[in-house]
């Protein structure tokens, strides 16, 4: 079992290995297909971490986080396509727009708490999904999705040969979000977030305004989700109403629970695992892996949601804390073995 002082260098080493593998020839990651899958998985890992900031660290159960992710995707695409903005400027514009949107919707939703807060954010997210899929105002191209104009993106992000740069971009954003989340959760505001989760009343007794800090956490995680969304646009090439659906937020919740909340790396690992598993299980189901089974077992097994949902139920019921929780429990046991 690892000691604490070794685990940080281990994270850095894993990151470096992932960064160089696509350039080393003759390994699975040298192929564009897996690079694309992993790029998307890295982005979902980062997105799960922004959700962990909200749900795990601050204790806010939001069901509308996908709205801000989709806002990052669509505002970037619209600014690039319709307004001819430089892509970096468009990303910045999307982050600012999303922060304002999050401040307004979050401000309204934070008048409620607990489960009602969850439902209000769900309704806001749903309104966003309807807005995008019905194409109000003619900005979003509705259910067909909104492709970004490739001429306005740098050449090294275009084409299958260049998938490795998209992969690196996604990995870079994951590292950036990881450090940003680290910095936020270890800052004094981050301590207040955790205090709000544990005992809101004591925070107000100490003279701090709970709602102001909740809103700060809400807006920060939304702004980071918008950045990840903008990068998702570059990696996948187009926006889709799917990204705004409540399913995405529920998937984020699953990722955080799977990896374990409040540990940062747990959420990232959960996000990457969930994303890879749901793509890989899809591939399995399209192949012949389940053909030998009777159809009443094989049918559900070929649906990734069945397996993932079952794992999720088992984790919530029997292993709260997910993967990282189990790791820390085991480490605690190991360190206390001699005593």
């Amino acid at each position, binding site marked *: 079992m690892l000691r604490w002082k070794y685990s940080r260098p281990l994270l850095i080493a894993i990151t470096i290995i992932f960064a160089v593998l696509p350039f080393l020839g003759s390994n699975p990651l040298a192929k564009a297909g897996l690079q694309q899958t992993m790029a998307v998985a890295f982005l979902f890992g980062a997105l799960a971490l922004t959700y962990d900031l909200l749900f795990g660290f601050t204790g806010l*159960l939001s069901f509308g986080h996908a709205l801000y992710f989709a806002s990052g995707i669509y505002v970037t695409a619209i600014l690039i396509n319709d307004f001819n903005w430089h892509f970096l400027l468009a990303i910045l514009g999307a982050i600012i727009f999303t922060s304002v949107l999050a401040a307004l919707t979050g401000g*309204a939703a934070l*008048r*409620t708490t*607990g*489960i*009602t807060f*969850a*439902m*209000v954010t*769900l*309704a*806001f997210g*749903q*309104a966003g999904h*309807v*807005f995008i899929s*019905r194409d109000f105002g003619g900005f979003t191209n509705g259910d067909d999705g909104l492709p970004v104009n490739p001429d306005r993106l740098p050449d090294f992000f275009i084409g299958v040969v260049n998938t490795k740069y998209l992969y690196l971009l996604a990995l870079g954003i994951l590292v950036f979000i990881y450090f940003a989340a680290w910095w936020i959760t270890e800052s004094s505001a981050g301590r207040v977030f955790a205090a709000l989760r544990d005992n809101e009343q004591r925070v107000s007794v100490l003279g701090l305004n709970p709602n102001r800090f909740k809103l700060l956490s809400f807006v920060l995680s939304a702004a980071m989700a918008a950045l990840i969304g903008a990068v998702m646009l570059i990696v996948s090439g187009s926006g889709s109403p799917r990204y705004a659906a*409540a*399913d995405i937020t*529920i998937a984020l*919740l*699953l990722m955080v*629970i799977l990896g374990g909340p409040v540990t940062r790396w747990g959420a990232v690992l959960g996000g990457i695992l969930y994303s890879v598993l749901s793509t890989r299980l899809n591939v399995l189901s399209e192949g012949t892996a389940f053909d030998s089974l009777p159809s*009443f077992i*094989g*049918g*559900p*097994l*070929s*649906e*990734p*949601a*069945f397996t*993932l*949902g*079952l794992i*999720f*139920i088992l984790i*919530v*019921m029997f292993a*709260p804390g997910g993967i990282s929780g189990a790791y820390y429990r085991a480490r605690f046991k190991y360190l206390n073995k001699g005593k």
Partner: protein
Amino acid sequence: MSTFLLILITGVGLGALYFLVASGLSLIYGLMGVLNFAHGAFLTIGAFTGLWISTKVFPNPTTWTFIAAMFAGGIAAGLFALLMEQLVINRLYNRHIDQALVTVGVSLVVTALIGGWFGFDARFLPTPLWFMKAVTIGEAIIPIDRFIYIGVAAILLTAMLSILKFTRIGLIIRAGVENRSMVSALGINVRLAFSTVFFIGGFAAGVGGVLISVFSYGVSPLMGGSWLIYGFIVVVVGGMGSVTGSAIAAMLIGITNQFANYYLTGLGDFVVVIILAAVLLTKPSGLLGKVNH
């Protein structure tokens, strides 16, 4: 005027369907503090049971086979709700967030299971022929299915209110919504009330599922999820734990949705969210809210 009447009655019909989904959600949350994401799955189970009855068991749809389909849908969904409460919710006693999370898992598994067995394409649920007819009120021509939704919802509303008002278990449920710990402290078995509420909620959602299949011309594994969100909105607007509140809010939202869709060209869903925001900003506990968990 005839358009107005058509939209009004369609809105009430839609509200009746919302009520069937929302009433159980509201009671379950009111009594146990469980936000039940699996309620959409109850609806889907009801709809598929109804489909099975009206295609495989009684291939020639008549009024009676449709009533049988509704009952079977309600009972199947109610039993599933009971099973979930016993096997899963009960073991997470007082862990409210975990209870909500586990229902998310159940809804994913059920949707995938049904999708894996029957596929995700919508299937047509056969109905008696007279469902397709319309009645004339004044100058307005109104499809008859609207009245079926309203009638069924009215019967279930009356039944639920009677159970709550006139039976012992109803008394325990009402007391439990007000103050659960006090009821247990008096030595009354609240667990039985939990199971009852889950069965009633599941039953209403299952019946709703069969009717929604008629309303939206098809049965699909994904139908539960999209109606669940409206159920949540109705529950929040009506107030947690109040069946009457759910009924009023369901009508309000159904009617507004239809009028906004007609006069504001498809903006119905937005107006619903605006109503939700307005109610929460002025009265966060909802119109007839009783619970402060």
